[in-house]
């Protein structure tokens, strides 16, 4: 292998359990965002746009969709003979297999992959965030400051700082202390989970720490260890748009921000494009009686009804007389004529029968998962079916191919759930 200056390791194995039914069958990085994209497209596109052409993607939780999406890396021009993208799944070593038990443990288990490229620097990323960032500028900073570790940080409001991993730094941004979710934060520099390490230093720390902890983690173990050993560690301040879409509400809100006339996060500029797997891109058809306002609508949609304040993924059909408001409809969903949807998220490939109403009634939190569904958003899982004329309230969850018998009096009150365990068909 030809030596690489810096390679990226992208942690994409997390479930993102607060996204509820959206991550039943999919790892969080594969969850669609902004119509045609998936969350992982943002760090992947950042890599290639920054000139990082070797990316190891560490998968673990429900990797099927992610594997298919990444393939050999064609959408990001990461299909390379030297480098490119490699999917790194947990594997059997010696007598037994081992899961990735922590973020640093996952990197530790792939030491050999990194060694092949013998890089000077390793960039650690997570596949959970929406942002555009030039990692090459962070690397310049890393070299200029002669760092062992550089951690990208965001200045968050002080009152929210206790929700983040906080870097306490001197005036010149040299970090002297790291605190995970401190009750009394001393600083508002929140870690974005983006690190550049000098590879030789990181390797040493990984090998050492994995003897001590069997769930070795960057925030909990590696960063404190390296600080204690007196390594040079700087905070790299990032001032642009960055969103963690970890909950149903924040996921919905981040999508909705994109439909503003001048959104904070601009997908329409040419010099820092976001790439995604979309080989087949038929045009989008808007029917004679359709009405679309303040929305994002992707390729291959056929819209005959009304769409307001919504984000539609590719190949969604919206039938005549249907109304979609304040909602996110993902790839390949079919919204039959006469449906009225308010504030809902409908995952890929779902079908809504005629005259289905979603989002009516009061704002009772979900009775089974009150912490996940409590902001009035109803979520329908992937490849689900809702039969004709059903009325669904707020904070509901529907998953599976439901039929009339699953709805008393043809309705599901706010906070209700219909979750059918998927039959495995051979």
């Amino acid at each position: 292998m030809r030596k690489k200056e810096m390679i990226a390791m992208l942690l994409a194995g997390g479930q993102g359990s607060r996204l509820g039914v959206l991550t039943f069958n999919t790892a969080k990085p594969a969850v669609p965002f902004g119509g045609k994209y998936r969350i992982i497209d943002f760090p992947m596109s950042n890599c290639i746009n920054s000139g990082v052409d070797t990316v190891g993607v560490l998968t673990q939780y429900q990797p099927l969709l992610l594997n298919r999406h990444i393939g050999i890396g064609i959408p990001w021009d990461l299909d390379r003979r030297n480098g490119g993208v490699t999917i790194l799944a947990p594997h059997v070593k010696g007598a037994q297999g081992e899961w990735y038990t922590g973020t640093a443990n996952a990197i530790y288990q792939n030491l050999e992959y990194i060694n092949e490229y013998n890089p000077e620097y390793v960039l650690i990323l997570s596949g959970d965030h929406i942002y555009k960032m030039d990692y090459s500028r962070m690397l310049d900073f890393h070299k200029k400051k002669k760092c062992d570790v550089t951690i990208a940080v965001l200045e968050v409001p002080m009152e929210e700082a206790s929700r983040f991993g906080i870097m306490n730094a001197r005036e010149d941004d040299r970090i002297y202390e790291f605190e995970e979710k401190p009750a009394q934060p001393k600083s508002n520099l929140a870690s974005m989970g983006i690190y550049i390490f000098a590879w030789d230093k990181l390797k040493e720390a990984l090998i050492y720490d994995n003897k001590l902890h069997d769930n070795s983690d960057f925030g909990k173990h590696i960063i404190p260890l390296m600080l204690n050993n007196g390594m040079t560690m700087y905070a790299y301040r990032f001032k642009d748009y960055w969103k963690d879409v970890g909950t149903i509400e924040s996921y919905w809100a981040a999508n909705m921000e994109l439909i503003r006339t001048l959104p904070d996060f601009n997908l329409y500029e040419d010099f820092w494009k976001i790439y995604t797997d979309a080989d087949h891109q038929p045009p989008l058809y808007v029917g004679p009686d359709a009405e679309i306002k303040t929305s994002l609508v992707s390729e291959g949609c056929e819209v005959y009804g009304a769409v307001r304040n919504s984000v539609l993924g590719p190949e969604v059909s919206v039938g005549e007389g249907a109304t979609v408001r304040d909602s996110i409809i993902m790839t390949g969903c079919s919204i039959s004529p006469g449906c009225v949807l308010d504030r809902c998220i409908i995952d890929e490939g779902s079908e809504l029968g005629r005259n289905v109403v979603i989002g009516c009634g009061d704002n009772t939190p979900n009775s089974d998962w009150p912490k996940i569904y409590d902001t009035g958003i109803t979520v329908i899982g992937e490849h689900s079916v809702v039969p004709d004329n059903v009325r669904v309230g707020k904070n509901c969850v529907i998953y599976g191919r439901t039929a009339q018998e699953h709805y008393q009096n043809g309705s599901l009150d706010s906070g209700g759930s219909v979750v059918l365990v998927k039959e495995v068909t051979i």
Partner: protein
Amino acid sequence: MKAIGIILAGGNNDKLGALTTRRALSAIPVGSCYRSIDFTLSNMSNSGIGKIAVITQYNSRSLHDHMSSAKWWDMGRKQGGLFVFSPYLSNDNSLWFRGTADSIFQNITFLKRSIEPYVLIASGDAVYKMDYNDVIEQHEQTQADITVMYKNVEDEDVCNYGVLELDETGRLLEFEEKPLETHLRHISMGIYVISRTLLINLLETIVGEGRYDIVKDIIIRYRKKLNIRGYLFSGYWRAVNGIPEYFGINMDFLKKEVRNLFTAAEPYIETKPKDEPPVKYNYTASVRDSLIGSGGIINGTVNHSVLFRKVYTGENSCINNSIIMEGTIVATNCYVEYAIVDKEAVLSDGRRITGTREQPIIVPKGAVV
């Protein structure tokens, strides 16, 4: 696969006026996101043809750009794949292609190095979808030397096409190119199946005699000597051979059955992806019965039109019955009717551009109006 493919994409057609002064006919944008060559190229790939030569000549830059990678059509192969041939200079030969047959003859090595028994020759400027295995099967069954694909047209003017007269068994009797007057209703689609070795022999013979055209010097001249047969194609097929046809093809994509043929049913027609974001509709947008390409930002009114990728329409602008190509900016308070606006044009505030259904007005590429 039993055949290799040759796409004749070198033709010049001045009937498209400003649209083809700097663009090969095969690279003309169609249906909001495609270019005309995508149809033949995808058909070949989808039919299992694994080795394709595209022969270019006029304004080949646009085609080379479009086909800078073959992977979108699954043609990035070690075995076979996509070959793009242009005229070149050498010590004993510095000729442009003198005709369709000559353009293949000058690349005859491509034929000689292949092993497949048949060659499928098609032009790169027609919009249609077909499985070529059907015509190859008929070609074998009828033991034809050459099979010419044709289409029946009842009420259209056929004077822009080659017309065929067949006997009751389907054998070619007469072929007339662009007839002034005719009662014949079979038009040639410019798609031929021929055995590879026969093609090599014919090309070497006719070019030696100073003849360079497939239609005139092979099909017509050899119609009695060889067993040339017709293959009837009954699906949607239209060639881009004039402004009204070009306008009509694009408007056909607004019809569900035409659109679905290409975009909803597998195998799909593939094109070079451009990674544009979804279309953004702002509050003042009003779009009816139109196709909108990705990356567009819509503030104005769009009716019965085809917008390609990355078109911006400003507030209070109205676009009716028009084709707006990639990257065009229509500023505020514009009125556009029956127009074909080529790529990256800019219509500044308050412009009115109106043509007629019969004669759409053309705004050339990059023009600032």
